[in-house]
């Protein structure tokens, strides 16, 4: 439950407090109505500004901290505009800003820098290396429309640099290892996503990522994954039970004994009953469907495409799971698939395809990772628009009372 802070204004003669109705408890809303204007009070004016701010907060959890630049680009491009680092600031800033969204890297809330972690013997995955109090305070402030001076963790030097000023955006995305770890921060999230990469795929991706570096070998990559696994399993993995949507990335089942990790099986696990979020479905909501689009109307090249949709339970929650195994080879395959999916929250026919094409060069553009990231982007837009519409009607209702 969100906690509402009420600012008192003893200087004014008569003031009414109208708080938001219980239904819109996900973000705080304080509405002031004055009968007599005695004197202009700066603090009072500031509070009116706060009440107008509708920041939607999205959490994204992933292993490689804030490396999800292409995921972020996909998410933010649904709203239009490119997400870029803050202009004129620290060039090692991890923050991305576009018209509607600001993406904050949670590594900025490290309480220990690289040297500090070495001394204490804790990895970055360990909660002891992170300042959750500060994370909570600042996310709460941004959500209420208050700008914050957020620290910067410099990944090159491993030091904590001077803070940067972050203005409250319309949509705030907090990305990193621990967005859902702290309960108070969890409460502030309007929507949360967990990117769950299976061990085999993680290994394959890290090989692709690191093999070109002269310092690395197959052994070093393997050793690094193994060494981080205990902390990862203890601190990061459990967060997935709290996520509204989990994108699970697994090796394909279409090619026997494939270990290259190039063809992927991706599952979009969507929690049922989340406010403003209606899961995508195939053909018939709540039923179980297995679908291979390749056939007479659509020719696909090897290994083809296979879809699955079914209701399931995930950590005691009811969920709907949409799964795609295989790859898109051509534009018409993507359009064909899009035309058979329902509840996409797209604004026009072919919007998903258009968004995928915009970033055709990004990794994952030809499989479920790109497809589901794009769909999640549309869902977030839908959630945002519903939240805003809801907030707009609530004060009108309260004023009538």
């Amino acid at each position, binding site marked *: 439950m969100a906690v509402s802070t009420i600012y008192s204004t003893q200087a004014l003669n008569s003031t009414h407090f109208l708080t938001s109705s219980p239904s819109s408890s996900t973000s705080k809303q304080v509405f002031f109505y004055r009968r007599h204007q005695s004197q202009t009070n700066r603090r009072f004016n500031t509070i009116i500004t706060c009440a107008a701010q509708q920041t939607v907060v999205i959490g994204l959890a992933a292993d*490689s*901290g*804030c*490396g999800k*630049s*292409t995921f972020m*680009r996909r998410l933010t491009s649904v709203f239009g505009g490119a997400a*870029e*680092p*803050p*202009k*004129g*600031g620290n*060039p*090692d800033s991890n923050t991305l800003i576009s018209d509607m969204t600001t993406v904050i890297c949670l590594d900025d809330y490290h309480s220990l820098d*690289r040297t500090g*972690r*070495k001394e204490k*013997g*804790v*990895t*970055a*995955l360990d909660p002891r290396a992170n300042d959750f109090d500060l994370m909570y305070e600042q996310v709460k402030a941004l959500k209420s429309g208050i700008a914050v001076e957020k620290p910067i963790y410099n*990944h*090159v030097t*491993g030091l904590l640099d001077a803070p940067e000023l972050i203005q409250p955006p319309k949509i705030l995305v907090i990305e990193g290892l621990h967005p859902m770890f702290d309960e108070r921060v969890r409460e502030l999230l309007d929507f949360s996503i967990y990117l769950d990469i299976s061990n085999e795929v993680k290994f394959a991706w*890290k090989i692709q*990522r*690191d093999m070109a*570096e*002269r*310092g*690395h070998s197959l052994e*070093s990559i393997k*050793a*690094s994954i*193994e*060494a*981080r696994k*205990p*902390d990862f399993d203890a601190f990061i993995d459990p967060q997935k039970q709290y996520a509204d949507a989990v994108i699970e990335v697994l090796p394909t089942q279409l090619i026997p004994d494939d270990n290259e990790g190039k063809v992927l099986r991706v599952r979009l696990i969507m929690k049922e009953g989340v406010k403003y979020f209606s899961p995508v479905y195939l053909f018939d909501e709540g039923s179980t469907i297995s679908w291979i689009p390749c056939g007479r109307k659509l020719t696909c090249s090897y290994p083809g495409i296979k879809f699955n949709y079914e209701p399931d339970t995930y950590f005691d929650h009811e969920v709907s799971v949409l799964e795609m195994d295989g790859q*898109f*080879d*051509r*534009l018409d395959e*993507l359009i064909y698939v899009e035309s058979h999916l329902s509840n996409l929250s797209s604004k026009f026919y072919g919007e998903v395809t258009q968004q*995928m*094409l*915009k970033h*055709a*060069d*990004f*990794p994952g*553009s*030809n499989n479920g990772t790109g497809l589901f990231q794009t769909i999640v982007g549309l869902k977030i837009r839908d959630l945002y628009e519903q939240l805003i519409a809801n907030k707009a009607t609530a004060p009108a209702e309260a004023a009538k009372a």
Partner: protein
Amino acid sequence: MMSATASHGGVMMLPSPSGALQHQRPPTVTGSDMFRVRRKEPRGLRLVVAATAKYKGTKMREEKLSEMIEEKVKEATEVCEADVRSEECKVAWDEVEEVSQARADLRIKLKFLNQDPLESFCQENPETDECRIYED
């Protein structure tokens, strides 16, 4: 890769970033110019244009990160010889991961997003050493 021409790593929607590439092609008139032309492009040349740093400062960061990866892998291998389950071993490999990811992020920014992290800093401070244009 999604591409009508099936060219490796093909970016079919975006115009070519470098004027230099124009000179390589014979002039063609049709609307599918961009597609056909991209197939003929020498792949190595286009990758160089898309994936390298623009400013000296960024190039220095790339090299520094690559060196750090090498150093830290050596360190981790040594530390873990004693006890592979010790805290020191975990922390050492975590550092390797952190630096490897930072290196990859920089590569992604330059290659896919065409953003040199020093871009806006160098607009304001073009005279600093870091902001000298990197020449190969």
